[in-house]
């Protein structure tokens, strides 16, 4: 009669799990996430109210002077006009806007034929200056 220790029999019956396929899948996931992360560029947004010129003039009874940033093309150069000042870059526009009262908001009146980047930079400057109410006024 042959007696065998219980422990050794357990060792013989132990199940083995082949991890090769799981590692393949994990690598596939890793490659997928690396590729998709490279392709997606981080995006943000600028929110502004919309008002057309017609509806803007209908509020003639308002008792304050609206603050308007004109975005125009002057002598082939994109220009910001605020009051009697002409500005050509974002930092100086932000500096001027910071000195204006914030409660009544600001209108950004955009002429046609200007690069979108330049026009949206005016909205960005208003946000950076602390304006909560920014209104985009398209001109056709």
């Amino acid at each position: 009669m042959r007696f065998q220790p219980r422990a050794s029999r357990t060792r013989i019956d132990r199940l083995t799990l082949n991890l090769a396929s799981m590692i393949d899948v994990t690598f596939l996931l890793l490659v997928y996430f690396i590729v998709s992360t490279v392709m997606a560029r981080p995006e943000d947004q600028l929110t502004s109210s919309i008002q057309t010129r017609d509806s803007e003039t209908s509020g003639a009874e308002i008792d304050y002077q609206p603050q308007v940033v004109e975005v125009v093309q002057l002598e082939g150069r994109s220009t910001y006009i605020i009051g009697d000042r002409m500005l050509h870059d974002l930092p100086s526009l932000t500096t001027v806007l910071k000195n204006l009262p914030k409660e009544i908001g600001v209108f950004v009146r955009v002429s046609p034929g200007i690069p979108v980047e330049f026009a949206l930079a005016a909205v960005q400057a208003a946000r950076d200056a602390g304006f909560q109410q920014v209104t985009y006024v398209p001109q056709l």
Partner: protein
Amino acid sequence: MIDVVFLLIVFFMVTSEFARDVRAELELPKLEGEQRDESEEAGLVINIQEDGSIILSVSDTPLQLDELEQRLRDTFQGQGSTEARVLVRADAQASTTRLNEVVRLLHEVGVGAARMGTEVPPMGGRGGAP
């Protein structure tokens, strides 16, 4: 477990394809944007390409303004202006002529506010803005 992992792969692939489908490859203005912490639902996405053509998704053919107007009216029928969510993604070098036409159209169909897409410049810089 391998079944679940495969399911995850399929899920991520399908969702990322969908996201890419409505967001055309554009060079958005390199501006910081509002940098809000909470993310908002994109809603309807209007892409304006550098040449001024308008597309709602990558697989779509370019739309004329009257076709866009019809789509907008169909989409926002019965919605208040505060509920209508529109993201306008315009190429940085596109002309404001087309952007203004689209914004005016949004106003005409009752959308009170538009969100303009920007590309966050690397390292929080000002990017290509003047």
